[in-house]
């Protein structure tokens, strides 16, 4: 069990740091999705399938999608002066 948990925790720690260090917002959206996958794997390892489900659906699909669409609007948006 430990052999499975340790790398999971480390993976989550690494991907989380990746989200912060990805200064370029588009890459960060991707990093968030990756972090979401890592988190849900960890949740499975921690025997929390329910939580893993929702993390997959929310953390890897919905949230990064919102980020991307907001970035698109920010790019195409001409601020009114």
């Amino acid at each position: 069990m430990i052999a499975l948990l340790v790398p999971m925790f480390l993976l989550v720690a690494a991907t989380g740091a990746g989200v912060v260090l990805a200064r370029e917002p588009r890459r960060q959206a991707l990093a968030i999705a990756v972090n979401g996958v890592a988190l849900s794997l960890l949740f499975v390892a921690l025997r929390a399938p329910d939580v893993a489900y929702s993390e997959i659906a929310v953390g890897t699909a919905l949230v990064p999608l919102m980020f991307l669409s907001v970035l698109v609007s920010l790019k195409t948006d001409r601020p009114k002066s």
Partner: protein
Amino acid sequence: MTRRMRLVLAALCALMIAPAVVAVIGRMPAFGHHPLPYGDAINRTTVAQRHVTNMVSAVNFDYRAFDTLGEELMLVAAVTGTLVLLRGRRGESLSDRAAQAGERPVCERSEAVTLACRLFFPIIVTFGIYVIMHAQLTPGGGFQGGAIIASGTLLLYLGESYRLWRRLVHSLLFDMMEATGAIVLVLCGLGPMLRGAAFLENVLPLGQTGALICGGIILVENAGVALAVTAGFILLLVEFLEETRATRDGGGS
């Protein structure tokens, strides 16, 4: 304050906080060996008392249903707030009709993409519904399934023309769906009181353990959550995607 100075001060704070963190981590109960009387009690008693086999759902929708009530109302508040923020400028009318910004596909779709989306959309929705319906038996539930369905509707956005998508995904419908979900949850609390029971008390027949229909009020609450979450997340998606188009024509205000 410059970013540099901020970082220096933050480093000083970290130096002061670190020992405390280390001390606390050092004294944490051993990982993986906690005594968990609360959880164990629920694990022991639920199957007998509530005829459901998914403890997490039992906690969410029965033991601690009051938390879930608050959680759903928070979802409603957040979605409402987002709608105020995003629709406020575009105006209600625009977001209920299909977008003004004429027929402009988001990207040139090949037949294959459209086909794949049309193929996968029903599969994903079915899966979401399956996850919702088995909340009381296996992992999953109203929240997970709702999120899955919501992200599934995105395939429509990718696969179909924008206008068709907006016709299918009609905001008003989902507004009402979300409100209905919240109302269902509150009534799950108030309903039993009419029969002299306590707020949120499980007064419905519990059914057969392991059957699809079991757990009494858990089913109803699960349905309410499913409604609220599905509609809420779809609304969020719709509004944000709407924004990517509305802004093309100069935002406006």
